[in-house]
């Protein structure tokens, strides 16, 4: 043992650091056939890219995007109310509150400065590069500032603000929807009611996704637990519901919601089309979510239940304190995957005639002024879907790391 301790001649493991050129030579040109493959591949990439780039920089009519940007983002939201002035400030208010809460959570929970500065400053500025008017760009930069101020506050009083931040998140979504919808009458001076038929574009897509996620989550968990229940009525109802919904495509459920539901309801009771779409999306997502959560429930060893029962916890307490926290933690990656899918699936409401991001895109293409701009428009909305989906998946990976998913 003494020899081991006295000798400090352990060499560090060999490090492999090389220049960019060195990397290229080592990995792409190390043998003659690899070099040949590299050259051929580059040639193919060039041929394919060349025509795309020529199209993008000379033939494409990108002016369709700035001309309709507002439609893409909020649809016909406020300007269509007769005799009313612009109501978009309500959406900005929502965004500012959101930026504040995001900044606050970041200050309270995330320690690394560079990431925070990068995201808070970078994201709105990146969006400001889009062809907006000057005032909109100023408002976007303002979002960064708001985020940073609350980040600083959150950092300063991290301990005290934890509960506050969680309650703010919970309160945010109902309040935000209330701002979008407005209070009461359509003639009110302050925040008049904006009927849902004016909601559209990205606003509608995001709203459908968030409501779908938030409302389907508790229902899905309840169904998953119900499916494991020893009470036969609860169990068979859960199984029946899950299997029925999973056996039908979302698009046909959406059609049923739009076309068939009014036939069953009494005359006069005619919930508006967006609410109907929301209900269908929630019902659909809940069934899939229940199956994902069931996977997590089945991964919990029997010993956990036994230990909880032996301590005197009843079935409900065992679920809430022991089983669900562990089960949900293990299924976070799957759930986020499902939420991303759900966000993209909301585009199906375009087919039943709602003007979400995809629906707006189709109506823009149909506009005689912009005939033949399908490529530009679809590329643009794909980019939007991608950016938001990627942001979701990135956040979830951070969340997994923070919660220690995968370690037990």
């Amino acid at each position: 043992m003494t020899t081991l301790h006295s000798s400090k001649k352990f060499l560090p493991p060999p490090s492999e650091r090389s220049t960019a050129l060195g990397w290229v030579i080592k990995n792409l040109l190390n043998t003659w056939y690899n070099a040949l493959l590299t050259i051929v591949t580059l040639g193919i990439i060039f041929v394919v890219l060349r025509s795309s780039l020529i199209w993008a920089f000379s033939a494409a009519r990108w002016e369709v995007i700035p001309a309709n940007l507002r439609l893409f983002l909020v649809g016909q939201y406020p300007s269509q109310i007769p005799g009313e002035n612009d109501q978009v400030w309500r959406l900005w208010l929502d965004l500012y509150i959101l930026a504040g809460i995001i900044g606050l959570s970041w200050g309270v929970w995330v320690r690394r400065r560079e990431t925070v500065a990068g995201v808070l400053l970078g994201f709105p500025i990146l969006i400001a590069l889009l062809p907006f008017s000057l005032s909109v760009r100023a408002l976007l930069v303002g979002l960064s500032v708001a985020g940073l101020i609350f980040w600083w506050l959150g950092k300063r009083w991290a301990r005290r603000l934890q509960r506050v931040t969680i309650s703010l998140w919970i309160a945010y979504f109902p309040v935000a929807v209330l701002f979008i919808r407005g209070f009461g009458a359509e003639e009110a001076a302050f925040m008049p009611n904006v009927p849902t038929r004016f909601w559209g574009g990205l606003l509608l897509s995001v709203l459908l996704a968030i409501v779908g996620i938030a409302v389907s989550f508790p229902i899905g968990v309840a169904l998953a637990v119900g499916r494991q229940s020893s009470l036969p009525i609860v169990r068979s109802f859960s199984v029946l519901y899950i299997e029925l919904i999973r056996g039908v495509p979302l698009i046909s459920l959406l059609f049923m919601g739009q076309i068939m539901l009014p036939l069953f309801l009494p005359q006069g009771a005619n919930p508006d089309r967006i609410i109907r779409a929301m209900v269908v999306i929630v019902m659909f997502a809940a069934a899939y979510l229940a199956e994902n959560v069931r996977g997590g429930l089945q991964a919990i060893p029997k010993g956990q239940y036994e230990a909880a029962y032996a301590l005197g916890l009843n079935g409900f307490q065992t679920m809430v304190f022991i089983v669900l926290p562990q089960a949900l933690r293990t299924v976070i990656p799957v759930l986020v995957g499902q939420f991303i899918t759900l966000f993209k699936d909301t585009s199906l409401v375009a087919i039943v005639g709602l003007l979400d991001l995809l629906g707006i895109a189709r109506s823009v293409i149909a506009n005689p002024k912009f005939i033949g701009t399908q490529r530009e428009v679809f590329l643009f909305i794909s980019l939007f879907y991608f950016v938001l989906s990627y942001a979701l998946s990135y956040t979830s990976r951070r969340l997994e790391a923070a919660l220690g998913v995968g370690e037990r």
Partner: protein
Amino acid sequence: MSNQPQIDGHNPIIICQDVHKWYGQFHVLRGINMEVHKGEVVVIFGPSGSGKSTFIRTINRLEEHQRGQIIVNGIELTHDVRNIEAIRMETGMVFQQFNLFPHLTVMQNITLAPIQVRKTSKEEAEATALELLKRVGIPEQAKKYPGQLSGGQQQRVAIARALAMKPKIMLFDEPTSALDPEMIKEVLDVMVELAQSGMTMLVVTHEMGFARAVANTMYFFDEGQIIESGPPEEVFHNPKEDRTKLFLSQILHH
């Protein structure tokens, strides 16, 4: 043992009469009769598959018995959920695989049941938990998660967790079988101290040193029946049944 605690010989705290259980066609328990008195330490041993674990788990209804009668602390175990919950509050259990809750800290593991079931205040539950952790010798581990502890430490936390409910009876289901050899002693020490403090204990174990030191009565199980029972001196030095002799010779000579 000179300071053997007093056993109340008149009022048994556990009464089992003709307890039977089947797993499908397999007859696991074939008529178990047992009386355990307050303060008594019972050691149950026998070959694997003899039904000893199943039996100890019927006492807090982790397993259901299908015939016979089990009365714990004056309450009969039936399908009545309230009876089952009442009995579980009075019996602590320690498992072979520890079964700590991996998502909770050691402190939360111990205080969860007192706070949720006994409705103790958080401060009081934490004070009790810290005392119990001192008693099992690991007060400094309170803020860690079970995954950060050694097997022996985990099992001691499991004992503290069971004791936090202030049970009248403690059930141990092979508490040292999943431990590395060097950790068995630290767990047995805690159990010996517990036995000397007057706790009523039912212990399924093959640790014969432990049995010799603190057991009042030993039961030898085989094929779902009690083959032999008696005080340790008798069972060790004067076993009456051939099967007991054979089994003891097998485990003692290794």
